[in-house]
């Protein structure tokens, strides 16, 4: 049942509302006039694909970003927020996806930042702060986080919980959460949802973004679906298939390109008993033409696995074989030059992948400089030619390859990163969450590219935080939990629900 976008139902002013928000970054429009409203005492979910604009919307509502046009209403009043502090003053608090904890300060210091208990002479009473933090955590049912531990030293899931608690103890009237469950396990998600129900009973308005359908269905009162920077509609009780169709504008079966059939083929990359920091006892075989997916909650070893396979992290035990040959990888250079060539498209393209101020051309050729140099001098003609051809093949949208990479949209940046490895002619591609923060059109281009690449004989190890992607793009999926492979899923058992179920299960069931 559809409802209009900007009324909260019931006639009373909405707790929070967005009215025709527009926001662009560089040449890309993240929000194209998005609107929605949520009432006090309501749990409202914002749903949409990666790149639909949900995160940007939350950041604007929380005062972190300013819209190009449109307005924000808090507690029925139109406001212009000049920063998060102003939003806080009006009772709107946000838990952002990128944690904003201070790593070298304790959990207690982070929890009570700005509201520390004062003692004699108006100075902060550190002992009391520790006790207060402990009490606050205990009141919310958390006993396993040490308030005197440094944030740097606690797990990612614990950090996400601290981030949530930090906001909840401020007693917000409006609570905004951006992907709050990305690294939380089953019990922790249950805890969070209990907490949300509690807050709802106390008339707090809760708005959260997610792309995990079963979670949304279990807690949200109403759902606003976003696509391409604007809302499609607000619904109360909608079926998953219909929701996905609305989210993607396509039917589920045309959303993903067909996966090329997998012939019995030679193994290109194998791991046997591989152990390193964050991973234990990893074994798998990746064959020519195969897309092997890796799934699971954030912080459970995927990153470490990819880094170890690429030689960027030392393997403590076990073997890595490329084309049947065991390798000792002392660093990425070894991985890149190893026979078939391993390539890593890393987690955060802005901080780990691209050199944003350098030209697109420089970014593309960074891994192949030796091949296009003679006696250490780069052959400019060769460089220009190869990059031109590649940019054409990948349809990288830019007026010139001499522009800085930072001027490209997220999707095109991702193409440049993949392009670097295509130039290097790497046959084994380790793709880490390559569609995160990428607009939908480019995302589909990347899917098609992946299929083309494996059709040409490459092999891809693909990590994604989106279980639907994994279910539809991969031949098989390994679900990781606590650094181990908890489950291996293949047709006919391969589905998004199965992946999520295997990921959140607390114990390693068979």
């Amino acid at each position, binding site marked *: 049942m559809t409802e209009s976008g900007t009324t909260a139902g019931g006639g009373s002013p909405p707790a929070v509302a967005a009215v025709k928000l527009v926001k662009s970054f560089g*040449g890309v429009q993240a929000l194209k006039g998005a609107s929605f409203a949520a009432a006090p005492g309501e749990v409202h979910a914002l749903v949409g694909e990666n790149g639909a604009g949900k995160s940007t919307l939350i950041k604007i509502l929380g005062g972190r970003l300013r819209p190009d046009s449109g307005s924000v209403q808090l507690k029925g009043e139109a406001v212009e927020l000049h920063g998060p502090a102003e939003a806080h003053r009006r009772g709107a608090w946000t838990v952002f996806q990128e944690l904003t904890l201070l790593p070298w300060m304790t959990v207690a210091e982070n929890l009570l930042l700005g509201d520390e208990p004062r003692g004699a002479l108006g100075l902060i009473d550190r002992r009391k702060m520790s006790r207060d933090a402990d009490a606050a955590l205990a009141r919310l049912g958390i006993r396993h986080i040490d308030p005197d531990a440094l944030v740097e030293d606690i797990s990612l899931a614990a950090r996400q919980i601290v981030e949530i608690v930090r906001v909840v103890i401020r007693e917000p009237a409006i609570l905004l959460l951006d992907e709050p469950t990305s690294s939380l396990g089953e019990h922790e998600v249950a805890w969070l949802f209990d907490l949300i129900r509690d807050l709802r009973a106390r008339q707090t308005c809760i708005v959260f973004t997610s792309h995990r359908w079963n979670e949304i269905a279990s807690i949200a009162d109403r759902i606003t679906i976003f696509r391409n920077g604007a809302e499609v509609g607000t619904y109360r009780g909608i079926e998953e298939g219909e929701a996905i169709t609305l989210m993607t504008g396509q039917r589920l079966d045309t959303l993903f390109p067909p996966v090329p059939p997998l012939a019995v083929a030679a193994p290109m990359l194998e791991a046997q008993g591989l152990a390193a920091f964050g991973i234990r006892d990893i074994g798998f075989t990746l064959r020519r033409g195969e897309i092997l997916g890796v799934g699971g909650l954030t912080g459970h070893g995927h990153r470490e696995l990819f880094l170890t396979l690429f030689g*960027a992290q030392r393997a403590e035990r076990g073997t890595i074989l490329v084309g049947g040959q065991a390798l000792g990888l002392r660093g990425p250079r070894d991985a890149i030059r190893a026979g078939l060539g391993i390539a890593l498209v890393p987690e955060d393209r802005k*901080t780990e992948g691209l*050199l944003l101020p*350098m030209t697109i051309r420089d970014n593309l050729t960074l891994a192949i400089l030796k091949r296009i140099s003679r006696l250490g001098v780069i052959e400019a003609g060769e460089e220009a030619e190869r990059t031109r051809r590649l940019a054409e093949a990948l349809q990288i949208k830019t007026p010139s390859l001499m*522009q800085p990479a930072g001027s490209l949209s997220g999707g095109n940046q991702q193409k440049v990163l993949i392009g670097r490895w295509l130039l290097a002619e790497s046959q084994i591609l380790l793709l880490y969450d390559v569609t995160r923060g990428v607009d939908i059109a480019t995302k589909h281009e990347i899917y098609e590219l992946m299929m083309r690449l494996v059709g040409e004989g490459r092999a891809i190890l693909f990590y994604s935080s989106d279980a639907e992607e994994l279910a539809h793009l991969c031949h098989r999926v390994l679900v990781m939990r606590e650094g181990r492979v908890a489950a291996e899923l293949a047709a006919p058992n391969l589905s998004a629900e199965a992946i999520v179920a295997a990921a959140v299960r607390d114990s390693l069931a068979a």
Partner: protein
Amino acid sequence: MARLGRLRLGRDRRRTLYALIAAVALFVVGELVHPGFAGLDSVEAILTIASFVGLVAAGQTFVVLIGGIDLSVPWVLNGAAILLVTLSLGEDGRALYALLLTLGMGAGIGLLNGVGVAFLDVPAVVITLAMNGIMEGLTLGLSGGLTCAACASYAPPIVQRAVHEPILGVPAELFLWLAVIVIVSFVLGRTRFGRHTYAIGNNARASYLAGVGVRFTTVLLYALSGLFSALAGILLVGFGGQASLGMGTPYLFQSIAAVVIGGVYILGGRGSYLGAAAGAASLTALVSVLLAMNMPDYGRSIIYGVVILVLLLLYGREEGEG
């Protein structure tokens, strides 16, 4: 963003241009204040002095481009000067041997700096500062405070000629500097090593994940910095004839100032040696103009600092969203 992109590319070249314009403008001002300032002899003299700063600035450019800094300049330079005269004893016959060892010493100290930064994770400020102290102690100790028998020797005539001898009427030192400018610019702009340097300066982690040998390049860059400090020391003592204590001290500040004025970004990844060289020329011209105006010592210091701040503010504003 696209428009900003085009601006950004021009920015580095623009700053080099500013530094060059500043140098020219200073000569014009100098001529107005003190006729004859912009005469050929005067310009040659000023540029010769600037060349020593320029050589140290070459080394400084290499390490600043990866976000580092070399505070060991003063005593590597001084040590090199003293080492050259004591090894060569003022004789051409021993010159080659002395030169090789001295340059080797500079590169070696730089190598140690690089190892400290790349392998031991010691901040550049700390290791180069410590190395400066080590060189100071070794130089003073081994030379007995410059009282050793060989210490009063002159630089070998061949080195003195390399600095003073006029080629086509211009002192050879300037040709040497020009050669350095050409070579360093070429290395930074057109070679794999240069590209790696800029990549590391922009993002060491991303460079590492693209297969760039970050540690190796870092060590090499610091070794080059030490090499250039030593080279500057050699040519300086060739210029002045004899070595003295403390001859290296002014060059630390001046080399960093030249690099900054020339548009090299102190956090790394952007800038060119041509800019730093122009910066060295401007700074030296500035000091000379002030001297010609009979500005007292303190005035020079103050104006020096103010000029740098003004330029930083100008550059900073262009950066936009910092």
